[in-house]
């Protein structure tokens, strides 16, 4: 031969390979559809939840300070308290959240005010699983009143909980507990 004899691969898909290809794609299509909506039980069978959501503004820990006229005059106008109201006293009190189920405490959390200076509201979101059936649920939010007595806000309810139900106990700042 005057030129090199080169044998290069010639591999096109054969008819039976095209048929298998279609089968493979059918399986892939089925897999896409199946696993894009495969059922899942998020809570498991026979499960219900009690959720507690809290937003609350606890009182300042320190005694509020009332500025004198001289002190007020030194402040820029936009920083002067309206009507001679007390200035912020800094850190606010912690609160204790308690959840009782059938008279038995199942959750106790100490909640700290938000903010770098701990002078913001407190927030909490808690969730516990309960067995369906009739229960006595009591939620309490206790916070110290400066040097005064502790204030406790409580809500107790007898409830029938069905499977999959979510009972929400929500404490709204300025309003109190609501279901």
């Amino acid at each position, binding site marked *: *031969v*005057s*030129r*090199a*004899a*080169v*044998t*290069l*691969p010639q*591999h*096109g*898909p*054969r008819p039976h*390979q*095209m048929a*298998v*290809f*279609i089968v*493979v*794609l*059918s399986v*892939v*299509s*089925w897999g*896409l*559809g*199946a*696993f*894009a*909506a*495969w*059922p*899942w*039980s*998020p*809570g498991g*069978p026979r*499960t*219900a*939840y009690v*959720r507690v*959501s809290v*937003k609350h503004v606890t009182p300042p820990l320190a005694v509020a300070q009332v500025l004198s006229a001289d002190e007020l005059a030194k402040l820029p106008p936009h920083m002067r308290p309206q009507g001679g109201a007390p200035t912020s006293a800094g850190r606010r009190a912690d609160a204790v959240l308690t959840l009782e189920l059938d008279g038995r405490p199942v959750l106790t959390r100490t909640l700290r005010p*938000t*903010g770098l200076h701990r002078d*913001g*509201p407190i*927030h*909490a*979101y808690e969730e516990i699983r309960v067995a369906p059936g009739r229960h006595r649920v009591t939620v309490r939010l206790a916070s110290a009143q400066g040097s005064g007595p502790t204030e406790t806000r409580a809500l107790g309810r007898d409830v029938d909980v069905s*499977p*999959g*139900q*979510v009972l*929400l106990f*929500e404490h709204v700042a300025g309003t109190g507990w609501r279901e």
Partner: protein
Amino acid sequence: MFAPTPLPVITSFPAARREPLHRRLLRGAGRAYQWVEVALDRLVAPALNPLYHTGTIAVFSLAVATVTGIYLFLFYRVGTAAAHASVEAIVAHPFGIGALMRSLHRYSSDAAIVAAALHGLKMLLNDRFWGPRWIGWVTGLALLAFVWFTGATGYWLVWDAQALVLSVTTAKFLDVLPFFAEPIVQTFVANDRIQNFLFFIVLFIHVTVPLVLGALYWIHVMRLARARFLPPRVVLWVTGVALTAASVLRPALSGPPADPTVVPASIPVDWFYFPYFPLTALDPRLAWGIATVFALVVLAVPWLLRGAAPATARVETPACTGCTRCYKDCPYEAIVMVARTDGSRYKTQAVVNPARCVGCGICVGACDSGGIVLGDEPIGVLASAVTTRLAESRASGHDPILVYTCRLMASLEGHLVPVARAGSGHGVLRDVPGAVVMGLPCVGLIHPDLLGQAVAAGARGVYIAGCIPEDCQFREGSTWLAQRLAGARLPALRDAPGVRVGVEWYSPVERARFMRDLAAFARDLA
């Protein structure tokens, strides 16, 4: 007896040194993956094997998701009640158009994330993620994360039971961070707390993140010459048909409307996007720990699992004629043509950027003038080593066949024996007498003139066992070689009377098929 000369540094037998355990484990996993590819090759032919086109299938699927998403966007309404109702209304559009669009949108998103994940797995198991390829790995991970994020926000917009689970689990996850004054999860205690504005924000993210995807994709392929955006036409069409078939036969449906007062006994979950849902019962801080460690480890893979640095290319400027063939053939845009600096009569010269060079040697095979060296050795060293080994083989009583191969060498090493004396550094196949094997980084390194030289040095014929072109370790080596030998690309095979060349493509694990083919080639030569 001929005095043995050391093999050029670019050849791969015997192995320069034993690799550490983690590299051997990676290679073992890679071989397992390659067997899966081989099985599909034999079932559907390499040209149709979807595992060779995972990257472009992901891009095509995202394109389908974009087009169908525009349709859905036109009819979508925001709000806890309106969102779910509007999606249901879209599904009820006449002639099934809405249902088809919605299903295609979902399944193309699923196909995109599956294909992208498989693409990453393939790059990992085929050792294509380190060295200059680190940028592809890192941006690929970012792309995968953004595809997931875009898809997850899409699921949220439907505001069904799955969206609520997604919202609550994500909110609990984020609430661990000390950035938020108020727990995000409190937003989802009741539907009346969720403002339409939140839907606008999520919709905005869902629509705009794909723009970031476009920019990331550009970075992902910026080091690739002739980057392919779409799969071959037949694969593109059948992917489209598969998506349509899934949409028609199993239309995508929403779960029940999101209701924070109920935990449904069962909800449909897209496991391609949310495989972690069963783990959401874990403490969010533990989840953060797992996610952070996993992300850092995966990002560091190009450095944790890197191999020995390959010999890179360098241009011997005096020999360079500025022909631009190396520049055109380099699959990684590692070569640029610049103005001549040595006063030669040629106007330009090639320069290799070592930070981009992966050491494939394709540029060496493209160069007529011997102007490129790999590992500081010109191609003449390879030619003289071949000559020596063929002569040694003849002196040992064989009528040699020269075999050039690349990744297949990993499967051959246990079947090679030195013929002259131990340590002489060349291999002869135990099962095919006289077959002298030269392992190269890529068969694209073979300049066609090497074939004639081999026959002149005493080879009965030359057999080249390269990577399957759709799966070439260096993207284009097999394709360029075939085109050169067919005379369709320069440098083309010149007239070489009496030279017999056989070429075949193999997966790195197909040793048995290679042995059969080589034995048949040897019989044909006899």
